[in-house]
């Protein structure tokens, strides 16, 4: 299979996410093409790549928010349907209407809805868990604040607290550090490191190349296809970075255009 890279996972290491030949196409234009990667558990993994590389799309495809044109994805060895309870999610801030009449506490409480299922009301235990998660991100004082009154960094932390309330084994984060102030960035990093201590897995789309090696221990480099994946030390090399960001893959763009215009029969 072209495109797979060195995957020096220790034999006994658990695989959090297994992506097999995943292809995602919007209106016949491929956004992700034949991506095949194993992401290990108990690590902080970054997904990086230039704009339009399909990073968010890969995350959404794993979470079932975007349909796969072909391929297969498994989470802890099972399809998404059976592993929902193990997943936490921090979406992009822009995906939500921040004018909605809800307080920070109520947003965090939403993280507990999944385990309740339909109709059941949140219990006192759920309320306590939500309060604790707000404290972990340093927003206990803002619990009753309307979310539109929060700053960008605070909104991001509310989202993070909500994901913590999901009490998951594996957390997906879509650009958690985008547009946040330095203090919030430190706070979020603190939470991520604490998660790793607890043996949890984090997979985050990250936009800032400067901080990638510092914050994460594993990396997936994407530019419509998988360019490289592996531990930071071995995979985050100049050569791979050039391949990911350096425009060596423009042939793919042309091919994608041709497919979109209907030249090639799709498998």
């Amino acid at each position, binding site marked *: 299979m072209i495109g797979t890279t060195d995957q020096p996972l220790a034999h006994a290491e658990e695989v959090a996410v297994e992506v097999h030949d995943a292809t995602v196409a919007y209106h016949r234009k491929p956004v992700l093409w034949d991506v095949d990667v194993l992401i290990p558990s108990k690590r902080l993994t970054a997904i990086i790549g230039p704009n339009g590389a399909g990073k968010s799309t890969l995350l*959404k495809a794993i*979470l*079932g*928010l975007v349909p796969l044109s072909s391929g297969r994805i498994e989470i802890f060895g099972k399809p998404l349907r059976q592993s*929902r309870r193990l*997943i936490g*999610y921090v*979406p992009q801030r822009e*995906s*939500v*209407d921040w004018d*909605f*009449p*809800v*307080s920070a506490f*109520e*947003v965090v409480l*939403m993280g507990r*809805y*999944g385990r*309740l*299922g*339909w*109709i059941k*009301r*949140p219990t006192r235990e759920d309320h306590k868990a939500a309060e604790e998660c707000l404290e972990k991100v340093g927003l206990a004082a803002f619990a009753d604040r*309307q979310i539109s009154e929060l700053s960008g960094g605070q909104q991001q932390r509310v989202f993070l607290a*909500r994901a913590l309330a*999901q009490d998951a084994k594996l957390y997906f984060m879509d650009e958690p550090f985008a547009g946040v102030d330095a203090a919030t960035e430190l706070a979020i990093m603190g939470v991520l490191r604490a998660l790793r201590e607890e043996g949890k897995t984090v997979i985050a789309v990250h936009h800032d190349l400067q901080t990638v090696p510092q914050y994460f221990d594993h990396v997936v480099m994407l530019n419509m296809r998988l360019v490289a994946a592996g531990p930071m030390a071995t995979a985050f090399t100049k050569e791979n970075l050039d391949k990911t960001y350096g425009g060596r893959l423009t042939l793919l763009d042309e091919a994608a255009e041709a497919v979109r215009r209907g030249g090639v029969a799709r498998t």
Partner: protein
Amino acid sequence: MLQELWNILSLSDANTRVVLLGTGLLGLASGVVGALAVLRRHALVSDAVAHASLPGICLAFLIVGDRNFGALLVGALVFGLLAAGSISLVRQFTRVKEDAAIALAISVYFGLGVVLTRVIQQQPRGNAAGLDSFIFGKAASMVEADLWRIGGVAIVAFLAVGLFLKELRLACFDRQFARVEGFRPTLVDGVLMSLVCGCTIVGLPAVGIILIVALLIIPGATARLLTNRLVPLLIVAGTIGAASGVIGTIISSLAPTPAAALTRGWPTGPSIVLVAAACFILALLFAPGRGVLARAASRFRLSHQISVQNILRAAFERSEADGGDSGAWSPAQLSIHRSMTPWSMWWHLASARRRGLVSHSPSGYRLTPAGIEEAKRLVRAHRLWELYLIHEAAVAPDHVDRDADEIEHVLPPEVLARLEARLLATATSLPHSPHPLTPRGDSHAAPRAPSGGTP
């Protein structure tokens, strides 16, 4: 008129009872359901759903051959959901955007409905259908059966909202997160749209198809101006809906028509909508904190406070530059340093006098001891902030006065204390100004001569 009002309010007339209770209950249910549709940003889609119920009702009538409420409800539901679904499909699979898709649905389905009404009217039993009243509503001819139906839909609506409150809240706020948690937002949308259909069809006798959307949307939009929490919002929306229904009905039965013909009063449906609209306008203007007037008042208060503070500072700095108390000053002397019209200066000085910060004598104005204390506090805050901007934020000294001006009026004591700790050796002395007091527009000038003469 008063006698008539009493007649109505005492609910002695059976027909009045039915209409009042019916419109009130309808307003209550529509208000709550519609508020959720507004939050879900499906207000316009609800309009399309309402218009699309017309062909559904007509087809049901044609098929069943009678005004069977159950059949009409099914017809309305089917076509309502068809309309919502077709909007979704057009938006997702074509280049047509949502607003055009909605306009398309409204006109196509409603057009179909009008054609079907003509078809029905040409049938022998067509006239008995009274389908025109579906379009415009005719509350006066509401019967007890209608009341029971409204009650039924209201109960179903409250049950659904009560049971699925957390799902509704989640799906309206963050669809993607809802999906990840295992809820299906499309299902929740379907439930909401079905409730909208239900309110539409039972609302037809009262307000008609065209205006039912007003009863769905206006209470919710009004409630959004008044509160920031979901459950209070739903309660307020329901209350406004119910009140609009009742008050609108009362007004419409009391108001005289110019023609004074066979129909009494104004048409009920539009009266209800106008009352709801009045509620919205009142909320827009007078909502505490968020209304137009409240925000204008708070802007005015802030700018007034800033002006008074600027006067105090200018007076103090003037004395300081003169090496001590330089005596009374006139507004004209101060306005060299602060550009204010004489009228507004007078207004702010009057306020400062009322607050005991400034005193007036034949020779001019002076700062009172309280005024001096306050001025010292302000000057200290201003200069600390200036020092901070120069030393820590790398702002050029000649830009600093303006920037400091805008920020320092809202500095809380903790920030001041931190600034002092950073910048001063002692906590109580007044720092020197990084740039001396000069007339406006000339910040590079040398310090004024201490003679007190104007430059």
